């Protein structure tokens, strides 16, 4: 069993135009920098990208928007990106906006093998249009479906050769659920260690979900809003 790849471009060898991708991260926090660069280089287009945000103009998914590789974004918040706005208003880009908790949970349900569930988020709003509405214990809920992807691209702090992943601080965000929801999950890590080096009590994503892993390089980890205490 070999899950270890040399680098990002070898790990995405079979991502073709038209694919549906999940990309981990929240804002620019914990995004798969190496994999995004490789996708830009490879040039696969007409992609459907599921990601909480769309990056900024010159970093993260913003890089893929610039090259017009993205056909559709499925996100909860996309307000940080001017190129995004331009393409959206021009009709070059489709967008599906989903409440953040619903988005996270739909992804999680794919990893849990649960096809549908009920959530209160969006009841009585335009998000509820066309959805099954149902009352449980006197409260109204919408039925939502699990969200799957052809490929999930995530970035973890540490990983081992069997694909076990550990995240650092707030970078777990959408990446844990996405890692479990991809038909093929590709993980880049800051440090790749031999199997057995990570304490099995501390693993955030067991290797069973991770099909390919490689040690990334040159992490920029750009900060969106640098706020400091005076």
């Amino acid at each position, binding site marked *: 069993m070999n899950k270890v790849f040399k680098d990002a471009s070898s790990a995405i060898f079979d991502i073709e135009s038209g694919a549906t991708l999940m990309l981990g991260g929240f804002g620019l926090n914990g995004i798969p920098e190496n994999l995004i660069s490789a996708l830009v280089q490879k040039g696969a287009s007409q992609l459907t990208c599921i990601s909480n945000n769309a990056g900024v103009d010159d970093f993260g998914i913003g890089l893929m928007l610039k090259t017009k590789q993205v056909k559709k974004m499925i996100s*909860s918040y996309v307000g940080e990106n001017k190129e995004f706005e331009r393409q959206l208003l021009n009709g070059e880009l489709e967008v599906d906006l989903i409440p953040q*908790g619903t988005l996270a949970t739909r992804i*999680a349900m794919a990893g849990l093998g649960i096809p549908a569930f009920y959530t209160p988020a969006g009841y009585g709003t335009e998000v509820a249009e066309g959805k099954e509405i149902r009352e449980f214990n006197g409260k109204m809920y919408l039925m939502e479906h699990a969200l799957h992807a052809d490929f999930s691209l995530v970035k973890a702090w540490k990983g081992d050769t069997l694909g076990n992943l550990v995240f650092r601080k707030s970078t777990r965000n959408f990446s844990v659920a996405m890692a479990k929801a991809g038909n093929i999950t590709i993980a880049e890590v800051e440090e790749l260690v031999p199997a057995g080096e990570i304490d099995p009590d501390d693993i955030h994503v067991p290797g069973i979900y991770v099909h390919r892993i490689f040690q990334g390089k040159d992490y920029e*980890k750009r900060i969106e809003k640098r706020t400091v205490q005076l």
Partner: protein
Amino acid sequence: MALDKYGIAKRIAKELQDGYYVNLGIGIPTLVSNYVPEGMTIMLQSENGMLGMGPYPKEADIDADLINAGKETVTILPGGAFFDSVESFGMIRAGKINLTVLGAMEVAQNGDIASWKIPGKMVKGMGGAMDLVASAKNIIVAMQHTNREGESKLLPQCNLPLTGVGCVTKIVTDLGVFEVKDNAFHLLERAPGVSIEEIQSKTAGKLFVPDFVPEMEA
């Protein structure tokens, strides 16, 4: 004198109770954390996956792996915990958050809230707001009483696309504190020096004014 944004935040901080788990939205709500009474333990939740959010870091302590839901660099307090977005919204939906404070563009007298979209202008997305308002038991809206055009934001019904229905329990504006119940805004307190007449003139929705309306402590 009407409250400034710090005054609004300070007033909302009086709603805190020891041991509360609190979610503060971006903007004025974030400022509430500056007015936590001494000796009170409040755990702030940031919906990108953290409990026990602390103040902004010192320059030397900035960590790109640690941001809040507003994408700002922050710190974590002792006893805090990291988790993922699924768990984060799980605790929100399961009602584990004792108090949610968020901004709004409009609030209706039945508790409806609009805060995420202005048709025809750019749509940025609802982020976590729809999950928060659909789930929280105790929602305070922090906002200016009127919009930039001077129009009331406390309305008979919302004109903008809704974020959630019948969910707002209290509103703190620059002019006063309002409880939302029985299809009306109930005036609880006036901002220092603000008259009931001013509040009445700037509230488009049904306003209930009791015989005695205390002035807010300064």
